[in-house]
């Protein structure tokens, strides 16, 4: 079976001390800048000392969905339950084209332990909140999908709750 090489895999191999000596606020921030060509891995004080190999830190999948303005993509009946509503919104703007919208590694640090309804998978760039059969899914690129909401109001209430919770993880 192959290995999914992603930002997260690379992060896992990183020092993860968030000491700040590199001039970035966290290891995640340095890695992100490295991929954007704005920082060098050598800025990390542990990097050479621990014998990391730069080639191991391959570039992750690029965000493609960010050349748009924030917008509601659609509001429609659920595919398998026409009584309920599904809504998709895109939050990302050009601003996020480099790093994506949500940073799921930070999201995991924020919620990983404390909120069992919120499942976060940094390796997939995905956060999922489920309650009473309703589900909200957020993707790192800035798309949010609300499924099985009772109605449109409910959908947007869930959306705003989701965004408020993940606010600390917005790039």
């Amino acid at each position, binding site marked *: *079976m*192959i*290995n999914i090489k992603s930002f997260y895999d690379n992060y896992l191999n990183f020092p993860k001390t968030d000491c700040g000596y590199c001039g970035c606020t966290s290891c995640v921030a340095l890695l992100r800048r490295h991929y954007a060509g704005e920082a060098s891995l050598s800025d990390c004080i542990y990097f050479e000392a621990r014998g990391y190999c730069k080639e191991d830190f391959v570039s992750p999948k690029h965000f493609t969905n960010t050349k748009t303005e924030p917008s509601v993509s659609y509001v429609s009946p659920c595919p398998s339950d026409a009584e309920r509503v599904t809504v998709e919104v895109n939050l990302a703007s050009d601003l996020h084209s480099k790093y994506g919208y949500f940073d799921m590694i930070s999201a995991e640090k924020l919620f990983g332990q404390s909120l069992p309804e919120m*499942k976060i998978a940094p390796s*997939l760039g995905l956060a999922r909140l489920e309650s009473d059969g309703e589900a909200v*899914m957020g*993707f790192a690129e800035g*798309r949010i999908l609300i*499924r099985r909401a009772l109605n449109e109001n409910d959908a947007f209430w869930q959306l705003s709750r989701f965004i408020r919770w993940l606010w600390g993880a917005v790039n």
Partner: protein
Amino acid sequence: MDINVAKQGNANKNTLFTIDLNRKCSLFLSLKIGDWMLDVELVRKDFPFLKQGRIYLDSTATSLTPEPVLNKMLEYYREYRANVGRGIYKASQIATEEFEKARNEVSRLINAKPEEMVLLRNTSEGINLVASGIKLKKGDKIVTTTLEHHSDFIVWQRASKRSGAALKVVGADSEGFMNLADFEKAIDDSTKIVAVSQVSNVLGVKPPVKEIAKIAHEHGALVLIDGAQSVPHSKVDVKAIGCDFLAFSGHKMCGPTGAGGLYMRELLLEEVEPLCIGGGTIEDVGLDYYRLKKGAAKFEAGTPAIAEVIGMGAAASYLMKLGMLEIESHEQKLTKRVVKGLEEIPNLTLYGPKEPAKRAGIFSFNVGRLHPHDLAMTLDVTAGVMVRSGHHCALPVIKEVIKAPNGTVRASVYIYNNNQDIDTFLATLEEISRTMA
């Protein structure tokens, strides 16, 4: 013997296949055919949709279209764009010729005579035509199964309601296997028609259609096979099955949408009534009478989907050039890989036959309590893997056989899927199961 002949043509010229003589010879010696090679990387070059690194695992819903088929359809629009069977000018004649050539190719694919091939839009239309054309009446009986697609199932429900004929539905066990004894019980002398899929579009299970046809014929019943999922993927021979009707769709076998076929046994062409009549179906018309044509033309009212039918013909040629046995063996290899991989993923429930050899390349599953739509969406967004989710137009299977109220996720493979597609799919699925379920 040490000869290796690789006949690799220009993809656009429709000559795309590889023969490995060495392999074939040794296989002939051991009397085992059907394990020949398909050069999947060469096949992939023919599919423009794949050029962007997409992983398409939804061929059960509809297949991708290769360049030779696209070019053939454009050729019609560019070179001989005229109606068929009507004009006497050159372009119309070429169009008619190409249209009939397509009929030949499609017939050859399932070992039927061209006269027995009715060209329609899709499987659903074929089945509807049969249901309305065989003059069902009160006292008759229709036999079908829980495995059917809605296009086969509800058509018979309506036919039964309209005509007063009884409807008997044969059930399946939890893996989708059906018991021949149940058919023997269900089919009696009042049975007018037995309608069964050759491959289930949810479970991938392959009912014993030949044996079912035999039982039906012993009671004088007609047999309709829904070949939507079998014709594109395996060597289907209507004579060997012994069926009276077989419906299939061009869009699931590398053809365009909007063209399909219905095989109808020659002797029945006269007896079955057409669904639509009009231009192209008549021999003579007066003010107070009309006389329908004989043969397949009687069922093909109005201007057909000419480009699409010609495209479907090109698709049939394309598949036959690759070799149906090669296709089957390629998919069987992928199937083994998928089943083995899925079994290793924690929290995953795979529906349908456990044994890879007993299923087609269709895999329905669920991961933990994750909703199938969420799972499908995640596969798409995180890895570009396209799979279907929901009830797959077969609610009787979902409700009665596998009892998964939200439906399932369904992945399926075809000629253009390679091991790498499968591995990425499995790895992503494993990650989802680990982090989300």
